[in-house]
């Protein structure tokens, strides 16, 4: 488990993380979203000990990362801006990881490379951006680290490979009890893979929840009543958004689906449809409630 308390980091005169608090449970995929410069990469670097923090605590399995090699063996980090040694092949890079990570699984690495049709003897510098990221990801996955931190995880990877990679990551989490933190400035990239999501804004986690709760406790409903109605008609419900177009209203409501259905049917609706919400829509409405304009954040 990763526990972050009052984490503060300044770079130059700029406050990047401001008393950030966050808890990431074991064996989950945690998605961290936020606009460019919101502090996602800085947070990952601090978790992994690349950067020192100014204030607060970061505990991983109740230990601090400072001068803790054993703990670092449990964490692997793939940054947004990838680095490979010049003239190194994929196999050379894997050997580098193998030398430093005690649980590195070379067989698994070769299997993953084969799955993704990567030539392990080809120089990485000759590969495309997306393929380089695949190389970095399979090296990281082969370390069998308990915590995997992936910054801008699927940047540059084409949609087909992205789907394959998501499956590999999900399988890794399931079979090896791994905790994965993934960041993206694009919420859509994370919604079908993450268990939990956190929104980073102005140096702090503005909002976090598990995706199941988000998706099962918020609904987009299209409704039309025989009689005239307005926003006040639904005042007893936890309504996040109301928009009426002609005689049909679209409302976003939080709550249990069955209870909502029961309550709304009491109003004898002409139309009553429960529509699926995308994760982005969930975030937009949640942010509206908090008084933020979501599009400015991501």
């Amino acid at each position: 488990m990763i526990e972050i308390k009052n984490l503060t980091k300044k770079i130059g005169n700029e406050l990047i993380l401001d008393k950030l608090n966050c808890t990431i449970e074991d064996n989950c995929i945690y998605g961290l979203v936020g606009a460019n410069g919101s502090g996602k990469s800085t947070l990952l670097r601090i978790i992994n000990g690349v950067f020192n923090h100014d204030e607060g605590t970061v505990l991983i399995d109740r230990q601090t990362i400072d001068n803790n090699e054993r703990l670092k063996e449990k964490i692997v980090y793939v940054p947004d801006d990838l680095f490979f040694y010049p003239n190194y092949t994929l196999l050379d890079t894997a050997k580098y990881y193998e030398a430093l990570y005690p649980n590195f699984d070379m067989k698994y690495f070769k299997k993953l490379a084969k799955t993704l049709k990567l030539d392990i003897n080809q120089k990485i510098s000759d590969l495309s951006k997306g393929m380089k990221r695949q190389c970095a990801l399979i090296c990281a996955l082969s370390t069998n680290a308990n915590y995997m931190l992936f910054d801008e995880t699927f940047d540059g990877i084409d949609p087909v490979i992205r789907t394959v990679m998501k499956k590999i990551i999900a399988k890794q989490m399931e079979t090896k009890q791994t905790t994965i933190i993934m960041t993206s400035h694009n919420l859509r990239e994370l919604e079908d893979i993450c268990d939990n999501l956190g929104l980073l804004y102005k140096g702090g986690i503005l909002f976090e929840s598990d995706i199941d709760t988000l998706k099962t406790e918020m609904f987009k409903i299209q409704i039309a009543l025989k009689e005239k109605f307005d926003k006040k008609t639904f005042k007893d419900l936890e309504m996040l958004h109301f928009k009426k177009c002609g005689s049909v209203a679209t409302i976003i409501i939080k709550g249990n689906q069955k209870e909502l259905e029961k309550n709304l049917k009491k109003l004898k609706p002409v139309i009553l449809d429960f529509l699926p919400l995308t994760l982005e829509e969930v975030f937009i409405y949640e942010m509206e409630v908090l008084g933020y304009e979501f599009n400015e954040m991501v």
Partner: protein
Amino acid sequence: MNSMKWFNHKYLMQNLKKSKNILAFFLVIVPLLSVLSLIIIGQNSHEFVNITFNKASIVTIIGMYIIPVVVSITLFGFVFKRQSSDFILSMPLNRSTIFVTNTVGGIILLLLMTFITTVLILLTTALMPNLIISRSMMVDFFFIWIVAYIFVFTAANLAVTLCGNIVTQIAITALILFLPPFLIHSYQGFTEYQQAEIKCTDDSCKPVQYNCYNDTKCLENQEKGIYTGMVSYNQTNNYTLPYQYASTVYSDHYSYDVSKGQLLKMCALSILYFALGLYLFRKKKMEVTETSFGNINAHNLVKSLTTIPMLTFAAMCFYEREANLGIFVIIITLVYFFIFDLITRKQINKIILSLLYFAVTTVIVIGYYYAFTKDGLKPNTVITQNNIQSISINSASDHLDTSNIFIDNKKLKNIIVKGLVSNSDYSPDSERLNIIIKLKNNKTYKMDINNISLNDYQKILNIVYNNEKFSAAFRNIDYKNVYAIKAANVVINPANNKEIMDMIKTGLENINIAKYNEMNQGFEITLYAYKNHKAVMYHVNSAISPKLTRYISKYTNDRLKKEVIEKNPNINDIDNIYAYLTTNDNMMTDYIINHSYSEIYNFIKNNINKTCDIKQEYIEISLNYKGKAYKFYTNNIDGFEKILNQKTEELKNTKQYINTLKSYQDTNNE
């Protein structure tokens, strides 16, 4: 529980693997160039060359400024790039482990390079028979250079922990290595100027030639019987090698001798830099990459510090009333100030702040300079005949190193002070002495007396030769440390020629020292020794023993016989024949010799088995064969002259001979 590992060999191997090409290049270049320099020295000389510490170190000195910094950049350069910094620091390695592993790895590489250099130098000198080298010296060579290289390496590593790009790292490394000694050296110089005042306070040291050049104070003193003068002295210093070698570029005051003090200082500073580097690396803000510093004030401070030497020079110009040059230097420094910004930060920002730093630095440096020089340059000490404890005469004998023989003799003190105070112009009837004065406060001052009268010189020699310590040292050559003997251009290995050592020893034991310096009829024998980490040369005239002289002439002729004559060489392979006759030789001898190679070679062949007694009249014939120089000694002057006369008769009517003779005569007349 936190785990801690200081050294990770797997990481080191990976780190070395990724930069193997660049490391291999830089680590091989010093040994190879060192060998190349020795080959050039060896091939450019037909004579035997004694490879001193400095000759062996030509490439190593230059390498000291480059190799450790390159190794440091190669091992620690990852911190200067965001991607590589993320990559390395995200690996399961503590920062302490990274720092210690890279430092240890770098030291191993430097050790390896220095070891290879040492071994290759020894091999080269073994394969090139005209190069002589002391193995003991090469042991010192290895230790001295490994200490110096580690010192520069740790300074460069410390610089890594302070900044965010390579150029700034190099600038900080230079500041660490050069600024503290520069400040001590230069500001000490402003107040002391390495000059001592010499004062003669009574007639015992009254100079014969003394001129006050209308100096009122000097004239007043002269009336009181006080004679003063200024003398420069060589200051013994403990500067670290990077600074010492750099300072010798503009100063000839400093010797190349490496003292224990310097080595200890470098070791202590290396440990300090390492400890400080380790601490700072753990605390380093890794987010500062690809720029000099996160903090603009730190950037401006470092930039300002790098301008101190230039501003000091400007201050010196103003002090010497060279205002235009001073202003020019300040303008150049100002331009540099902004160029530094462009190189290290890729932009010029906060110009006002930058100018403020420049102005403050300029004022401080110039103000500091003036504050210490406002009363003029003061001598460091006053030396009188009464505060001298003892004197060492370095050049009293060509025979041995006398720098450690201090003589406490009142007469000697008076003559020396007299010689130092005397400010007469140079006279051809004078001698030059190199002395070390030890004062009663135990401070020593090494200096030259340039124009001591022949009479006083003789008196000095008499005092020196009659001194017991000097006599003892004269007879006690440290034979066990002698690694080569050069006599008549032949190098003799003392290990295989014990008898020559015995002959020298016996000869010196029986000789009268005063008479020794008058001997000029023998071969010049040089004994090369390496004693107490210092090269010592003993010069012995073979005339101390007739047996020794015969031995050398025979040894020389035998070498010529064995290596040339017995191989029945083609006469065209023999060149540079030159003859030195103890009897008269006329101006055309060289011309005739040049036309008589075949005859001279046959003459040598016919006389090679005859022993030469150089107390009698003799001829020394030198020749080169296949790049090696040989000498031949014979008393058969008549035979040699007969060859020359016959050849002269043969050639004297030729146009070329007449023209050459005319040209010689014209030159002589001019």
